[in-house]
């Protein structure tokens, strides 16, 4: 809709509009921002789920603060939940019961808050995976990636603290594990624990302290980080998948207003509906059934929320073989390594990856076009390995439930996971990389020959061939974009003059060269492949993957058109 077609606003409103515009020049800014385009692919909506569930978290959280009493003061319950009347408990727990049973809509709000938290972290994960697999973390977006990692980390901590607030049975057990990990710190462990808990576990101060972190400090930081994340995104724009007209310089998509705004608004309501629907029908964290925490309580069958599951799992399967005692002080490696080390590997690895990858590939160019995951097979394989590692730890966190549900011996599950976390990622890496390379080969073939139409034609000579149709220009464009994205890194031991470059002589240089070679060695080269140039009779002869292969294809390509080429043309016009 262009401007001169827009219906005139009523005079009064125009007056207000002009008043504001004269002062803030919003119209110009607004126009630019409203025309901002957004890519039209579902995987670009994943971050939005996180944003929306965060908003829902904020709103439902504010509701809960109106009644929640973050105090560990001891009282005897005499509220309306009959089963626990006369039971001693903390005020925090009692006020959570009050929200659940006496505040109108309180239970629904609690469940909304909790489901939204689960969905929030889940959406962060899938959003992050999208960014990872499409290489959208590359220059110039490294900073936003780091912010994302920070948001992810804080979200998990925020979730843990929230989980601990109601002072019910799982809260207390979670805190107990948290304290256990704290205690495992060499030298400072005991002090840190006493400092945080204000004395012996559980003490009287931990819930008020976690409360101010949970409702004030961490959300404020999260909010700031999210704002920064968006401003950077706004400035840099999304990456986009390759396609016609999409280049490193030009973004194609839906303009912010009105099309995208409407879509996004609808999407918000859908996210909201799913969360509320779950909250209305599926019970979550039934604190009234759990009962209050007492320090002697201990139970089977309780887990942390899913996003802490990988830590729980690493604690469960890590053996105590490495526990040591130095000068009479025990160093419980069996807690330290899984409790802190694995977390370090995960978040440290995530944060470092863009820089590690840039260092390996030596690629300092800015990238606005997303990689298709198959075109970066090593990265995709590593991502799959990471998912497998994380997923197995996560499953290991529920090994008792798995054992009970599927009737596998508990010790067996422990060993399955202990071995699995080493073997699983390797297998996932190999399989994923193979699949990627296979897809690359298919892509090259499609580019050279068009796609298999499923139609069989008989040549005048009596021979049967499968008719290949020409792919649409869009497809051709997507396929051709490959070469520009993942250059094969040649690592000549010496330059043209036979002199080793100083950079590659150092130890790091050698390492880098090795890694760069590993990173790109198996890539299928598309160099010199002309679209739809392939000789159909060569179909099926593609098994080499050396760089010469692409050239071969193009040589064949110009070798005149055969009968089947004509069939291709004819059939192509039918569609």
């Amino acid at each position, binding site marked *: 809709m262009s401007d001169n077609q827009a219906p005139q606003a009523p005079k009064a409103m125009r007056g207000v509009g002009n008043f504001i515009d004269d002062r803030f020049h919003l119209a110009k800014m607004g126009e630019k921002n409203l025309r901002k385009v957004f890519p039209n692919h579902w995987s670009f909506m994943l971050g939005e789920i996180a944003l929306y569930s965060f908003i829902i978290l904020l709103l439902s959280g504010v509701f809960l603060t109106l009644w929640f009493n973050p105090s560990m003061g001891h009282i005897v319950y005499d509220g309306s939940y009959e089963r626990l009347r006369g039971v001693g408990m903390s005020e925090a727990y009692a006020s959570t019961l009050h929200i659940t*049973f006496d505040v109108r809509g309180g239970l629904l709000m609690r469940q909304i808050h909790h489901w939204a938290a689960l969905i929030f972290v889940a959406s962060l994960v899938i959003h992050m995976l999208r960014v990872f697999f499409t290489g959208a973390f590359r220059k110039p977006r490294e900073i936003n990636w780091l912010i994302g990692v920070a948001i992810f980390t804080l979200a998990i901590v925020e979730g843990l603290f929230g989980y601990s607030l109601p002072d019910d049975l799982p809260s207390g057990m979670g805190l107990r594990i948290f304290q256990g990990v704290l205690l495992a710190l060499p030298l400072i462990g005991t002090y840190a624990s006493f400092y945080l808990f204000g004395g012996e576990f559980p003490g009287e101060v931990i819930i008020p302290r976690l409360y101010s972190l949970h409702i004030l400090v961490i959300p404020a930081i999260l909010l700031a980080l999210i704002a920064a994340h968006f401003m950077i995104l706004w400035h840099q724009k999304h990456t986009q998948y390759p396609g016609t007209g999409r280049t490193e310089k030009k973004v194609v998509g839906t303009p912010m207003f009105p099309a995208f705004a409407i879509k996004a608004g609808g999407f918000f309501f859908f996210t909201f509906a*799913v969360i509320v629907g*779950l909250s209305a029908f*599926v019970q979550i964290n039934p604190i009234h059934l759990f009962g209050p925490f007492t320090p*002697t*309580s*201990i*139970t089977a*069958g*309780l887990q942390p929320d899913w996003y802490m599951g990988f830590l729980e799992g690493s604690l469960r399967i890590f053996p105590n073989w490495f526990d040591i005692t130095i000068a009479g002080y025990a160093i419980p490696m069996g807690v330290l390594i899984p409790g802190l080390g694995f977390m370090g590997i995960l978040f440290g690895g995530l944060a470092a990856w863009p820089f590690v990858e840039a260092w390996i590939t030596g690629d300092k160019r800015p990238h606005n076009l997303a990689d298709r995951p198959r075109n970066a097979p090593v990265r995709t394989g590593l991502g799959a390995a990471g998912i497998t590692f994380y997923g197995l730890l996560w499953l290991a966190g529920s090994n008792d439930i798995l054992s009970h549900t599927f009737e596998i011996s508990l010790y067996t599950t422990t060993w399955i996971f202990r071995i699995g976390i080493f073997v699983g990622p390797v297998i996932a890496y190999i399989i994923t990389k193979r699949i990627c390379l296979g897809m690359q080969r298919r892509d090259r073939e499609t580019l050279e020959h068009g796609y298999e139409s499923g139609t069989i034609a008989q040549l005048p000579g009596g021979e049967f061939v499968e008719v290949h149709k020409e792919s649409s220009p869009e497809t051709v464009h997507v396929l051709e974009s490959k070469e520009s994205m993942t250059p094969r890194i040649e690592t000549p031991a010496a330059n043209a003059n036979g002199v080793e470059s100083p950079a590659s002589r150092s130890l790091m240089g050698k390492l880098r060269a090795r890694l760069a070679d590993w990173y790109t060695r198996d890539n299928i080269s598309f160099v010199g492949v002309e679209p739809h140039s392939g000789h159909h009779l060569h179909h099926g002869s593609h098994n080499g993957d050396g760089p010469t292969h692409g050239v071969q294809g193009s040589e064949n390509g110009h070798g005149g058109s055969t009968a089947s080429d004509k069939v291709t043309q004819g059939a192509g016009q039918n569609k």
Partner: protein
Amino acid sequence: MKWITARRRHPLAGYVVVIIALAFFGVGYTFVAPATSPAQAQNASAESDLANVDLANGRELFNQSCASCHGQDGKGITKTEAGNAGAWGPDLTGVGAAAVDFQVSTGRMPSANPDAQMPRKPAMYGRDDINDIAAYVDAQFGGGPGIPVNVPGDKPKRADFESEADYEEATELYQSSLEQYTGGGDTEAGMKLYMTNCAHCHSWSGGGGALTDGRWAPDLNSATPRQIYEAMLTGPGAMPVFQDSNDEVGGEGGAISSSEKQSLIKFIVDLENEPNAGGYFGLNRVGQVAEGFIGWTVGISLIVACAIWITAKQRAHD
């Protein structure tokens, strides 16, 4: 997906979505609105028969279906003695009537496979026969803890009664004895005892859990109060014994007095009968693992499906 994509711009599409949503919530609500569960039928009739047990019948039944594993003399048969027959069982000396009642009324005995933990099954014998066997074992192989007759036992079964009226009467009787029994307990004491002594095996909900060596702690929700009491008294399988009073020695689990047991049982029974306030789907009270599973499989999946839907464009066939 294609089908929806093609029609989602249809002028009626919006109404269809609204109607589906309304129907979804309407139907959903009828599920959530809690159906009041009818009073659970239970029965207290059995203990009156304890006075006139038939020891001869007990001996006959024991020799018939228990002696093959536990021996005619009740001294048990070891695995090596049993050899390939595979029929072995422990010494029953001093186990007492409570152990027999627990094992037979929960269907564990006669065992089908002595090498594996026995699951709960429908009992093979009726109340009178169980009483007879229990009395026989108690009298013949040295006494142990007796059947705790003041704790409500089996629920009445309709088949055991001539007329509907008798059945209902028995049910009411059972119900009132159950209420009387659990009414005497103290929730807080029961909760503490449960969380300290039982939850690490049977889980907070009584749903059971995995133990080491391929064993498991079963679900407590089908056990009658008397069976719970007997389980504590006799410590079946991998479960420790929780003796009645402090001055008796021996139980690995420590001692829980009979009034404490009453509180504990009250806690288990009340928790089991407690409705799931949070929604129709209680997820079997499995807790966070189930919640995480639903969060991913239903929650995030639906939202992503929606993202795919709203960004879908009619792709030119290529």
